[in-house]
């Protein structure tokens, strides 16, 4: 949390002025018991009515000036808190944009979204409260203590002890209860998990007649949750009674000492009442403080979670040279191996492959055979753990990722489109693409009928492309990559939802592209890749063979097996 505070610098003025005005308000409040003491000693003591009226008006005056101070303080605090959070949100969003695939995999989407939204809101209200109140309460407590000293040093010492005891008790209870609440949260997560699972898996649960068992499990978790809640609740319920007892015992001692001092003529009755009022003020402020601290600890926890995301260093830096004009080879894999973070074994081992400009490479293999891993190395979404990958003759680790990715068109496995018009989406490939260029890409991607069906490029796509079918989305994502006119085009199993005829037409049009890209096609279908210049056969992260369709049929057992399973029909 505390490292985040540097982002409040822009609001340094507000951050200082807010609490300052608040302090002024608190200061005024501290005068109130003194005024009351004067009313008692001078006003009532001498029966001076006009003095009493004057002093009461002074009280109203103090209140009014306090109001003005306070509103000013609220404004500055709100401005600083809101501005600070907006800034942190910006920084975090930018930071997430810099993270590489490795970190994104590790963090997970839902974590990042919670950090950006609910954690942020919690931080905002925490900062706001802190600026408004955190300084005020201790100030009133210590102020009341100092004022007490001006009245009588001996009795004031009681204040010192009481404040110390209170601090210890308040923080003690809090330190005790915070881990308890964390536990409550964990139990709640378990209850939530079970609920969610029972909804997502309702068919399986009912098919296996697991309803009773699941209900029992849920009730068990729920019971644990309730027990944790009750225990945490009882502990934090100690706060109010304990502070109440301490303060009131202090008042008892105060009156006792005060009475003796009045008896000996050291103090006046009004002074004792003033001391008593200060003690009450301390009580009120401490209760506020305790509530405040609970809120602030929550915010700090949220702030820490945000901080921890910010502290993740992107494993791929955004430095390096621009991609040079290529020579003979567009992409070269030299003994490239990949091991994912926290994984025991390599996902991909020892790939050696040189791809000439304009060639089409097919990559085939079973689930988990690392086909996607292989192509993800080209735009440097992941780094190799051994060996290297070169694009246009240069190791990708020496290239600026932005420049590198600008010459590569990727069509990911999951066909993702964004909210906005089809045109907006296609322009992701190239902001300045003309209407003709867009339509040409659409044609090549066999998506012309999608555009027609949707009534043109201005059709609004809903979030996650909900209003399109899988096949329609897939073709539009291909078009999006083509708009880029990339030197290297990667199709990661991106024709899976297309029927064979469309798939064949797509491959034909890719061959006829005027910008002649080097194409990588990942697929599980032999038919999609059998005409490629080279086919890479992967199994379990190992290269089983590289060659043309005919060569592989001849010499690669795995390839033959896959081919036969898909084309057995001819044998019937």
């Amino acid at each position, binding site marked *: 949390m505390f490292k985040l505070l540097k982002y409040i610098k822009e609001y340094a003025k507000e951050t200082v002025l807010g609490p300052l005005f608040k302090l002024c308000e608190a200061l005024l409040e501290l005068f*109130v018991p003194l005024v009351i003491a004067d009313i008692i000693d001078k006003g*009532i003591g001498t*029966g001076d009515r006009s003095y*009493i009226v004057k002093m*009461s008006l002074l*009280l*109203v005056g103090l*209140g009014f000036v*306090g109001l003005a101070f*306070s509103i000013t303080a609220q404004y500055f605090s709100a401005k600083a808190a809101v*501005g600070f959070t*907006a800034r942190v949100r910006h920084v975090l*969003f930018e930071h997430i*944009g810099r993270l*590489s*695939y490795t970190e*994104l995999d590790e963090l997970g989407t839902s974590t990042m979204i919670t950090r950006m939204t609910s954690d942020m809101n919690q931080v905002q209200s925490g900062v706001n409260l802190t600026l408004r109140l955190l300084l005020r309460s201790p100030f009133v407590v210590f102020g009341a203590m100092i004022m007490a000293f001006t009245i009588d040093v001996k009795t004031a010492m009681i204040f010192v002890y009481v404040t110390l005891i209170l601090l210890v008790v308040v923080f003690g209870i809090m330190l005790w209860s915070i881990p308890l609440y964390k536990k409550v949260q964990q139990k*709640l997560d378990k209850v939530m998990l*079970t*609920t*969610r*699972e029972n*909804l*997502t898996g309702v*068919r*399986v649960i*009912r*098919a*296996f*007649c697991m309803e009773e068992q699941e209900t029992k499990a*849920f*009730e068990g978790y729920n*019971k644990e949750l*309730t027990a944790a809640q009750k225990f945490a609740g*009882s502990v934090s319920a100690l706060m109010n*009674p304990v502070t109440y007892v301490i303060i009131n015992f202090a*008042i008892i001692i105060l*009156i006792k000492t*005060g*009475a*003796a001092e009045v008896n*000996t003529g050291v103090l006046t009755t009004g002074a004792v*009442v003033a001391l008593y009022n200060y003690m*009450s003020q301390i009580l009120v402020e401490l209760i506020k403080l305790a509530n405040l601290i609970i809120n602030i600890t929550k915010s700090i926890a949220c702030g820490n979670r945000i901080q921890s995301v910010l502290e993740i260093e992107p494993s791929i830096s955004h430095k390096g040279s621009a991609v040079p004009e290529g020579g003979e080879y567009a992409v070269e894999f030299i003994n490239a191996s990949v091991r994912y973070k926290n994984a025991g074994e390599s996902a991909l081992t020892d790939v050696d492959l040189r791809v000439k400009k304009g060639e089409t490479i097919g990559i085939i293999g*079973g*689930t988990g055979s690392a086909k996607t891993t292989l192509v993800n190395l080209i735009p440097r*979404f992941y780094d190799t753990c051994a060996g290297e990958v070169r694009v246009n003759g240069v190791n990708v680790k020496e290239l600026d990722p932005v420049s590198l990715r600008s010459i590569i068109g990727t069509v*990911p496995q999951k066909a993702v489109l*964004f909210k906005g018009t089809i045109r907006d989406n296609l322009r*992701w490939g190239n*902001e300045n693409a003309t209407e003709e260029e867009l339509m040409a890409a659409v044609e090549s991607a066999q998506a012309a009928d999608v555009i027609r069906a949707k009534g043109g490029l201005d059709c609004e796509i809903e979030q*996650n492309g909900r209003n399109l079918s899988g096949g329609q989305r897939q073709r539009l994502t291909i078009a999006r990559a083509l708009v880029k006119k990339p030197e290297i085009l990667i199709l990661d199993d991106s024709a899976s939802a297309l029927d*064979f005829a469309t798939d064949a037409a797509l491959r034909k049009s890719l061959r006829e592209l005027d910008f002649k890209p080097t194409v990588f096609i990942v697929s599980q279908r032999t*038919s999609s890749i059998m005409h490629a210049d080279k086919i890479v056969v992967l199994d379990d992260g190992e290269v089983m063979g590289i060659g043309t369709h005919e060569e592989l049929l001849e010499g690669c057992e795995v390839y033959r*097996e*896959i081919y036969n*399973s898909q084309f*057995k*029909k*001819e044998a019937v």
Partner: protein
Amino acid sequence: MAKKIRSGDLKRVLKYIRRYRLLMVLSVIMAAVTVMLTLYVPILTGRAIDLIIGPGNVDLAGIAAILTQIAVTVAATAVIQWLMNTVNNRITFHVVRDMRNEAFRKIEILPLSYLDAHGGGEIVNRVIADADQFADGLLMGFTQLFTGIVTILGTLFFMLTINWKTALVVIVLTPLSLFIARFISKKTYDMFRLQSETRGEQTAFIDEMISNQKVVKAFGREKASLEKFDEINERLRSCSLRATFFSSITNPATRFVNNVVYAGVALAGALSCIATAGTAVPFTVGQLSCFLSYANQYTKPFNEISGVITELQNALACASRLFELIEEDPQIPDSPDALVLENAKGDVTLKNVDFSYTPDRRLIENLNLTVKQGQRVAIVGPTGCGKTTIINLLMRFYDVDSGSIMADGTDIRNITRKSLRRNYGMVLQETWLKSGTIRENITMGRPDATNEEMIAAAKAAHSHGFIKRLPKGYDTVIGEDGGSLSQGQKQLLCITRVMLCLPPMLILDEATSSIDTRTEIRIQKAFAEMMKGRTSFIVAHRLSTIREADIILVMKDGHIIEQGSHEELLKMGGFYHTLYNSQFAAV
């Protein structure tokens, strides 16, 4: 923002609380006692102060006696207050626990049509977030509303008995702060609505961009999306500032009113002191100090109550959403004389079946199908043609609108759901695993299976190999929805699960769609073994599966348009013929 509260929700909440009525009564009594004792302390203090008159004129013995009284009172108050809080916690958390349990039990018996129509997220939100908010509100209501009211009444009573004139000052001035608070909250309502709308917009944007961060990176759109983000962020900043600032005026404003009240009490009280000095019932300095401390205490609950009431309304709205779920109509229960189907032979007959999800869109009309024991039925057709609907009907996840489905000659509506489902083994397109160990997941259908049986099933389903390689083998704990397992591995586990119990009838829904061809070959062998002598329904995409089926159901737009064996259908030259040629013709 505005949440709906249905009439009768309060009654429903009370129904849950009623179980804890003894605790409730206890809580109320303790609250009253606590408040009274708390209010009594200033009176005692006042009396003590009155014994301090001046130098040489202090009744030290009298003061000591009063102080002892204070000590006892304070100690008692503290203990009772803690007990009260604990009791309140207990009531609240138990009520919410009961509601959650009931909601969960309802989820288990709700018809699939409800669960399919309402997103999982929404229902989870009701059971978790809404229930939590309700608990917060209820607890706050218990602890603050009642004590607040008692404090106001108690203070009024004490003040009126001590000095009614000064008390009037307090009574007249205090409601002012309520009006101010009300006024401000009304004025800021629109600002808050704008804020939450903008927040919603931003969350949607964040959701979209972060979920698809990989695509953003692939297209180098980091900067462009940051710009859009900043634009929303700036709007949010400015409307959030307005909402936060204007609403935060409430506190200083009400505090100002309190200060005025305080000054009023000081004035009226001090004047009373002078006026009554020397009379039979003087208004003493001690009483004045007691009054001043009341003035502070009296205004506080007023400020809190308005907050509590909004909170309670909010809580009730949350409870209302939970009640909607709890009161949803469950599926039609099994009739008491329903048959328990045991070791079915596997004859399935569909007779004149009509079914549709929504009345305005007819889906299945007059479907007739006779499947004999051990036959294999392949269901084919383009995506979205209603193939999974058949499964929904066979498993009785949905009931037919008219006509009937019979298993072994009995209408499945006369068979208990459990026994019907136990006779089916199902592998769905969407794999589902629960968080827990691999073992727990595999033995779901047969918790009593031995280790050997489990491993045999895993070997048959070709999952043994990869399970063995996991850190803890069969005892490896997998996270929600399979955690780090690949889609293919998850599918294999789902197949293993069915392998282990091997019921007489099988339902396989595109079960092999995300398994690679080589693994699939192995699995198909296992499937073939599994299907021997078992009636099977397969939502099929693979050619070999279809060809080997006894009956092929060709579906289009929810209708069964063709029915027969592979050769028969090809000869017919109809839709199947076209479909077959477009999907499976070699290139």
